[in-house]
């Protein structure tokens, strides 16, 4: 089956979440991604849960699996001159190299963009970092929560009378990965139209500003107003209780009349609630009125019935709900792949569907160094004896 990026060869030096997320999408659409890991320990996410049966094991991390399926894996010690030499040989054959080290690292290894460009002028090098390759915070250390704080999102999350509260998942790293994917494709497309290789600088902070820039501009730059944590819930509502969880009711093109009719709740057609200003002012009252109806209903059922009335409700899904949800199932969004140590593993698929060149997830995440022989012997012509020597020397 034809895939869009069938002819693209990616050298993947990334680790943790952001970089691997970027290269995984490339792999799902057909690119050959060779993941380069440190011998012995490998990518740190191999040591992060969730683990199969909660037993830590470097070949049984669900997180590592999700982020690295569809890739081939080799080990190279980039602190050894031979390791660097072998990498440079691979660079000659690559279209793209993606790395997510702290900004000084690649130069310190003798692998700066300038050095790699000299080896392969067509190479696209994508560097994904927390704060970008320049600027006063360039060398700052970050976790997801730290990135959430610095880009203005965390301040807006939670209740005004309590501490700001972080979301319980890694938006920052995944946004960085998504930005890395799109930026890499931009450079790749440009190169194919007669351009050359170039260096792509992806700053996770800049990509997160896509979330907050409309508030920065829309609130502060337009009116000088600085919203606090209550602003958005007042504007857009809170999740209300349903019998078996939570639901978010919403008016649609039919306006509040349709919502009132659907919920059998004429009280919310009150004049006081008719404008945005009014809805800000009376948010609590509106919520209480609406909750009096929603708490009698089951969430998925209410969601579907509302949608039939063209009311864009949403229901709060747990991870269990996601796997049961009819829509995800019908679209084949979740895939199950066999892994030599983990057995059958089910995980999410790709973020969009293409009609002629669909995405594929068929190959599990690689075992550490699984493709050393295929790549180092098969592509670079090393003999098996040389491979053994490198192993003993700690180069692979």
């Amino acid at each position, binding site marked *: 089956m034809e895939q869009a990026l069938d002819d693209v060869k990616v050298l993947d030096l990334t680790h943790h979440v952001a970089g691997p997320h970027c290269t995984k999408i490339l792999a799902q659409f057909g690119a050959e991604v060779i993941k380069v890991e440190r011998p012995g320990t490998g990518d740190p996410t191999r040591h992060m849960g*969730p*683990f199969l049966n909660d037993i830590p094991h470097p070949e049984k991390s*669900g997180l590592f699996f*999700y982020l690295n399926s569809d890739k081939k894996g080799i080990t190279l010690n980039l602190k050894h001159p031979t390791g660097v030499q072998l990498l440079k040989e691979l660079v000659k054959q690559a279209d793209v190299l993606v790395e997510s080290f702290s900004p000084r690292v690649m130069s310190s290894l003798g692998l700066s963009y300038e050095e790699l460009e000299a080896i392969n002028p067509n190479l696209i090098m994508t560097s994904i970092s927390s704060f970008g390759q320049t600027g*006063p915070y360039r060398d*700052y250390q970050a*976790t997801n*929560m730290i*990135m959430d*704080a*610095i880009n*203005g999102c965390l*301040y*807006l*999350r939670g209740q*005004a009378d309590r501490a*700001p*509260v*972080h979301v*319980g*998942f890694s938006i920052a790293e995944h946004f960085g990965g998504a930005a890395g994917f799109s930026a890499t*494709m*931009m*450079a*790749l*497309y440009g190169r194919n139209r007669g*351009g050359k290789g170039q*260096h792509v*600088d992806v700053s996770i902070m800049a990509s997160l*500003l896509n979330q907050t*820039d409309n508030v920065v*501009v*829309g609130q*502060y*730059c*337009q*009116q000088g107003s*600085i*919203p*606090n944590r209550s602003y*958005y819930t007042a504007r*857009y509502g809170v*999740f209300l209780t349903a019998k078996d969880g*939570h639901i978010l009711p919403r008016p649609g093109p039919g306006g509040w009349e349709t919502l009132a009719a659907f919920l059998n709740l004429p009280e919310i057609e009150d004049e006081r609630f008719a404008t945005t200003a009014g809805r800000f002012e009376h*948010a609590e009252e509106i919520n209480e009125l609406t909750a009096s109806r929603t708490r009698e209903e089951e969430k998925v059922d209410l969601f579907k019935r509302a949608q039939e009335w063209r009311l*864009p409700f949403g229901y709060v*899904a747990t991870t269990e709900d*996601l796997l049961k949800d*009819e*829509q*995800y199932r*019908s*679209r084949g969004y979740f895939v199950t792949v066999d892994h030599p140590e983990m057995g059958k593993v089910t*995980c*999410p698929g790709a*973020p*969009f569907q293409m*009609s*002629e*060149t669909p995405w594929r997830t068929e190959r599990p995440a690689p075992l550490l160094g699984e493709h050393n022989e295929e790549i180092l012997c098969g592509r670079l012509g090393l003999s098996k004896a040389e491979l053994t020597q490198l192993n003993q020397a700690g180069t692979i």
Partner: protein
Amino acid sequence: MPSLPLEGIRIVDLSQVWAGPLTSRMLADMGAEVINVEACQRIDFLRYFNPAENESGERPWERSNRNLLHRNKRNLTLNLNSPHGIDLIKRLVKISDVVMENFSPRVMKNFGLTYDVLKEIKPDIIMLSMSAYGQTGPYGYYSGLGTAIEAVAGTSNLAGYPDGPPREVDSYISDPGSGVYGAGALLTALYHRDKTGKGQFIDLSEAETVTTLIGGPILDYTLNGRVQSRMGNRHPWMAPHGVYRCQGNDSWVAIAVRSEAEWPIFCRVIGNPAWITDKRFADMPARWQNHDELDRYIEEWTTRLDHYQVMYLLQEDGVPAAAVLNVSEVLLDKHVRANKYFELFEQAEIGTRPCPGVSFKLSKTPGSIRKPAPTLGEDNEYVLGQLLGISQDDITRLEAEEVIGQHPIPLPKSADIVPVELLQDCKLLAGVDSDYLNQIKEYDANR
């Protein structure tokens, strides 16, 4: 060799609000000619939000922060409920490379503008449809915006205080996330087209883009049957990991100590207080168990300091920390300024405002902001006259028949004004900076 990757690529963009326009903005910044199409009878509702200075002005539909999404683009008005409008859009598609939209899935079908139809007109056309839940399946006709989609996609259940209900994430994920993936998707299709001559249809479900963010929690369910819930500011194993009060009103700092090795460094920065030798904090698992007490001690230190100061002190020694910034602090932050994440740009109707910089930083083909967001129908003459060769007489007739135009039909009385005083009374604002226009004026000078 084109000087920008997307020079010569023409995109017919029917999308509205946020996700679609973000995708097309990213491509416009890199040289694509994006023709944003709106009907005067049904303009983008974002045009009325957050009007500059909270005033309606001469043209209340040109004063919103929507401008930040639409720089570098062209704007054509077309009433797609009229046969003339449909005919014109088809003629435009014939000379374009991409068509994109983010309506509810029934809309393009009702217009008769599905991929099958457009492919007849231009065989290698690439079409991107972005919708809440996708074009197929039992939710194939469902609609949704932002928070509702995130709820169905599973992220909302993970957000909020551990002792509270799921919370809206308070700054959307589905729109900006879909916007970025959408750009990548179009580029992938364009890449394939240049290789093979074939176009295709891209079906992007915003819910699916959001669910891709929570692989970890999903794998915990599929591997171990565990349904993860809200952890608040805690982390599965890092301790300390939290948000701490600082000096001043509603001022906070986020701190994360990632490893055993980092803990003594953190202790040194905070002055090696006596409590660090307590058995309860001896190693990371112990600190995790006794996190409440740990937090109280740490806050004793942070409340004496400004939030930026805590960040500088810890980051200087390599410990992850960040001031929790509000929107004005983000704009004025020194890293944001130094890296030009916002640039000043002159806009129609409302003058110079900060605008987000170009999303992609490509070393040899840096994009740029070349022109401000167009006003409604600004490019009608260009598209219809120059690109489609329609006579001036015919253009005049189209205006008279309200197929095209340069203002909404019917004319609105005002923008969606929410008095700042009301927001203050409802306690929804941390503050109001009456000097904001000056801050903006001085923005470049203070880099």
